[in-house]
């Protein structure tokens, strides 16, 4: 077990003007489950691979347990990785796959077998230990890949989208199992995903990356309640937050006709207002919206529509309770809950605190 510290870690790929990972500084505590999330190509996998030593660090450095990892080979870092493709050795049985690292480290056959059995018990893999990866289902392979990581009892787990090859239902159950397993083992874990639901549900903290730059590191709740910029606001939450540019008049932002009082920067000409789908109230006053699409999910419904009389206006998403079910073409009058409106700078997109 160990802490991990990224100190301005940068990775440049040849032929790219911009670094793939741009001086990421990130402190991960001992035993923490940190999720790295971002859109594809944002550098999250590269960041993870830098930690595992599979990718060089061009600038800055990474510390594991306080030790500078510059020039340390992957095998000497005591980091175990779970790959998206699982990367099991096809010629070895599940047991041999899991014992490979232990045997390489010089552990005796009997002891390695014991360790594999323990891990297999946790992962319910005992009856499958003799099978080759080709004889296992996707979910079973995924668990063997997890087992291969946990038998080593490493300092750090690196997981690179380990659930993305599973079907939706299995993904949900495995998600919970991985989170529970991590709590039980207490091993520092860095988990990469592009799925914000995984990010929100699994991690102690979530780090949002965009274009190689770390945007915000915080608990899932804080990320949702206080996004530092429009990117984080738009990335976290499903359906996405409504981001509407609004002019400012007399210390109030004008959200399509509905006034939103500003606590600060009332002098700005324009701001971007972020309103979560659930932060609207339906009532007599506010913005009239013509409904274009209704997504009913049973317990709730999401209504998409544009301001009445303004077909080029922004598309707004509104979450409705069960009892209210408008039809397409209806007009709803909605107003934002002032306390839940996020205000961002119109130019930089940064949160106006």
């Amino acid at each position, binding site marked *: 077990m160990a802490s991990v510290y990224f100190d301005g870690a940068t990775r440049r790929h040849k032929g790219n003007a911009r670094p793939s990972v741009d001086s990421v500084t990130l402190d991960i505590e001992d035993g923490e489950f940190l999720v790295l999330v971002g859109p594809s190509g944002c550098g999250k996998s590269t960041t993870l691979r830098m930690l595992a030593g599979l990718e060089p660090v061009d600038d800055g450095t990474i510390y594991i347990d306080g030790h500078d990892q510059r020039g340390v080979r992957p095998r000497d870092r005591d*980091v175990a990785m779970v790959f998206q*493709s699982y990367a099991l050795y096809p010629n070895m049985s599940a047991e041999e796959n899991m014992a490979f690292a232990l045997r390489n480290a010089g552990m005796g056959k009997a002891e390695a077998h014991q360790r594999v059995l323990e891990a297999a018990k946790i992962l*319910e893999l005992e009856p499958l230990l003799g099978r080759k990866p080709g004889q296992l289902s996707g979910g079973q392979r995924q668990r063997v890949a997890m087992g291969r990581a946990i038998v080593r009892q490493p300092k750090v787990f690196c997981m690179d989208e380990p659930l993305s090859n599973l079907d939706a239902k299995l993904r949900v159950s495995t998600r919970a199992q991985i989170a529970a397993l991590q709590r039980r083992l207490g091993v520092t874990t860095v988990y990469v995903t592009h799925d914000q639901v995984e990010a929100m549900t699994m991690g102690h903290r979530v780090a949002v990356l965009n274009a190689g730059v770390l945007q915000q590191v915080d608990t899932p709740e804080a990320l949702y309640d206080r996004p530092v910029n429009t990117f984080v606001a738009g990335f976290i939450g499903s359906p996405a937050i409504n981001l509407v540019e609004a002019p400012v008049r007399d210390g109030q932002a004008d959200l399509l006709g509905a006034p939103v009082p500003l606590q600060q920067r009332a002098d700005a000409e324009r701001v971007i207002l972020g309103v979560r789908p659930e932060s609207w109230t339906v009532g007599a006053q506010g913005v009239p919206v013509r409904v274009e699409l209704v997504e009913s999910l049973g317990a709730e419904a999401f209504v998409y529509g544009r301001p009445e009389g303004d077909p080029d206006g922004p598309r707004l998403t509104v979450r409705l309770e069960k009892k209210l079910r408008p039809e397409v073409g209806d007009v709803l009058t909605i107003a934002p809950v002032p306390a839940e409106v996020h205000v961002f700078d119109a130019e930089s997109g940064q949160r106006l605190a």
Partner: protein
Amino acid sequence: MTESAITGVDPDESSGRAHQAEAASFGGVLMKVAGYAAMVAVLLLVAAPLFWIVITSIKERPDIYTQPAQWWPSPPTADGYKAATTDIEFWSYFKNSLIITTILSIAKIVLGVLSAYALSLLRFPGRTIIFVIVIAALMVPNQITVISNYALVSQLGWRNTYQGIIIPLAGVAFGTFLMRNQFLSVPGEIIEAARLDGAGPMKLLWRVVLPMSWPTLIAFSIITVVNEWNEYLWPFLMSDDARTGTLPVGLTQLQNNDGITNWGPVMAATVLAMLPVLIVFLALQRHMIKGLTAGAVKG
């Protein structure tokens, strides 16, 4: 966890059915007939000369030259085989072939695998240049280097020695090329996983990369064994007699024994020379099955 219940329909199965449906609708019987016709044509092309060699080897001498050709020997005789194994020192040539082929094949396979491994999975400066040089060597026909090699080897006094035959033939551009491309096709994540699991370079090769490359390695081995067994020009130039001559060289001796070529014994010796490679091929080709990488990555 209950994957099977969730997965439901096996995707392979359903796509297999789709393929069958497609084949049935596409020309159907006509395609089948054309396919068989093509197979028969190829079979005739390959098998007819072989068949001719075998029946000639068991014909009596006058029957070999009769017109029209006899398609079945009457009566069959083993005289050709007796002559082939007694007129020349057949077993001596056979032994030489066995020794030279074994040593050469082992050398070529080991060198091919090791050089391919270095050129594909180990990182060192100048790797690409070395690979280009190896490929360039592949482009030079053997016959061009024969004269200089001959001068060199005879200067060393290595004519009529095993090393004189073996060492100049032991270079392996083809094996390096073939195995390198095979190694490059091994998924990078598996190699990274092995590195993280603490596998050193030799263990990575031996436990991870090679087991995933058996089909290619076996194909390479078969090609090498057959080639070395049939190697003619260089052993012929290097050996004067049955001390180091290989079977193909022995066949030449047999052909030139009397003024006129006695085809019966030559064909018999050819059949005998063919058998060992045929056995090696049959033994190894079973292992050239695909699907060894199944289940390595993805679902």
